[in-house]
């Protein structure tokens, strides 16, 4: 309570008309900032204790997580910048459900965001505007922000697990047109990656299933050919082959358009490559992953 009283006291001082309108002298401004910042920092202790109780569920165990307050107003957060995996806890204090974009400052890389039920959710890495990086007071190495939409229930909190991934190949996805179809496509990829992560290596069935799901997405859209076009252009360098690519092209004019027979040949070849990969080293297996290009 005494910690909370400190914040109450600071908030009381901030009711002064000079604090509200900014008509205080500059050294008073600095003092107001000092008072408020210290009070907020101390009050975080209460949130920290509460969250730790909720998460560990056992008062005898030491806290698993230590919550930090980040200066998100300048896209700066020491924890998320330095950590390979971190938990984002979002508390909604409104009495209705909200969908709120959450932006977490990080270094450049590939990240996966998991919802509380363990599902991989759609996220996006966005570079921080140069004007923010130029802020004179900013001391941060973050170059990007992970952005995702948190669907929060009334008066509730949610945890999101964010982990840095070392490899990801879902690049080159042009989302500048036909957003709905593209987002469905993106969700499919995310589902596919999630499935992939659960396996030690890829089997062709997964790829074929995946092709089927793309097929359905594309069939719903009259603007693309009814038969999607798949090309395989990955290299095969014996047992240590590096890539197996599936390109889903939306424009038949722009690329190789195999007929059914050729497609079967490609699948056959892919099956052989993957069977080959099953018997190769862990490093070799790790190198087997598809590039899914729209």
């Amino acid at each position, binding site marked *: 309570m005494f910690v909370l009283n400190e914040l109450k006291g600071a908030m009381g001082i901030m009711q002064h008309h000079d604090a509200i309108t900014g008509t*205080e*002298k*500059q050294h008073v401004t600095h003092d107001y900032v000092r008072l408020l910042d210290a009070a907020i920092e101390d009050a975080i202790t209460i949130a920290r204790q509460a969250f730790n109780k909720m998460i560990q569920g056992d008062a005898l165990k030491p806290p698993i997580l230590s*919550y930090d*307050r980040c200066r998100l107003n300048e896209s700066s957060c020491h924890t998320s910048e330095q950590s390979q995996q971190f938990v984002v806890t979002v508390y909604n*204090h409104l009495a209705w459900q909200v*969908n709120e974009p959450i932006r977490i400052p990080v270094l450049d890389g590939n990240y996966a965001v998991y919802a509380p039920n363990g599902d991989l959710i759609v996220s996006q890495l966005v570079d921080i*505007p140069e*004007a923010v990086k130029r802020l004179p007071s900013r001391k941060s190495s973050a170059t990007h922000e992970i952005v995702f939409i948190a669907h929060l229930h009334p008066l509730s909190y949610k945890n999101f697990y964010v982990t840095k991934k070392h490899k990801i190949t879902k690049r080159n996805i042009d989302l500048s047109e036909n957003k709905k179809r593209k987002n469905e496509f993106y969700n499919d990829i995310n589902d596919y990656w999630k499935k992939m992560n659960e396996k030690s290596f890829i089997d062709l069935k997964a790829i074929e299933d995946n092709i089927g799901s793309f097929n359905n997405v594309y069939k719903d859209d009259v603007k693309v050919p009814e038969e999607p076009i798949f090309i395989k252009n990955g290299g095969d360098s014996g047992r240590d082959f590096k890539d197996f690519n599936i390109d889903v092209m939306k424009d038949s004019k722009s690329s190789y358009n195999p007929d059914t027979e050729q497609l079967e040949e490609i699948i056959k070849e892919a099956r052989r490559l993957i069977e080959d990969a099953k018997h190769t080293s862990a490093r070799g297996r790790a190198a087997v992953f598809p590039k899914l290009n729209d």
Partner: protein
Amino acid sequence: DEMRMLADDPGVVDHFPETLFVQNKHMKLEVNGTSGQIILISQPDGTDIKYNIKFYYYPACVGDNWIAERRSSGAYIFRPNGTNPTEVPTSYVKGASGPVVDELRSDNNDSVANTVRVYKDLNFIENDWVVGPIDISDDVGKEFIVRYITDIVNNGEFYTDSNGRQMLKRKLFQRPQWNVSLAEPVSGNYYPVVNKITIEDDKAKIAVLTDRSEGGSALTEGQVELMLHRRLLHDDAFGVGEALNETEYGKGMVVRGRHRIFLSKPDSKSSHIEEKKLVLQFDLQPQVFISDAKDLSLNDW
């Protein structure tokens, strides 16, 4: 980066139309590729609203404060030296684009940068603005504003949330209880905006939601303006005794903030409720805490 690389490649430059778009299911923003200006918002019902975002500054008035006509602009008093603000050139290029958010960015490498965001499935436009450090090398104090320019015919009327209490109708150069004659045509029509300022006509309504208290007005037909940042070099003799000239590390202070722009039909009750909820959602944003999970695997979590 890839889009920029493609744009630099003369072989594929024809893939980029002259007009840029950012869109979601609620709206589509159109940007003129040549001028870099946002020009239009299209809505799902087929209606268009002309729209632009421009930044300006009012040069501050300087005087000896002996009489009202010679009052300096200062911490208490907003007193621009003239009624036409100076435009700060901005031009938008396409920023990030992905499954969560599409962005347009503008940065004049000087005092104003703005990022316009349209999130997937969210029915507002977000402006993330950065203003400062305000240049005072010409010994002129400046007060920066942003204007949201639309073709809404508001007849000089606009609504502000009256210090967070209730939405009150404001009309230029008028007061509801008495006949007024304003000596200050700009600041005399400024009102406090704690969370929301709106204009509307029969067809459309635009609400600008703020993340902090700002001063605002609608001085020109169809345009909402909000003050973002001030740097002044003289005291206005109302008591503070010093100029409003804040610095950080020897430079003028830089301010970052956000506005959310919500478009609706003026007679839509559901939109009205949605707008009110959005105001509170923006003002009382979810609290975000981040903790290192180096000892907590995904499975354990």
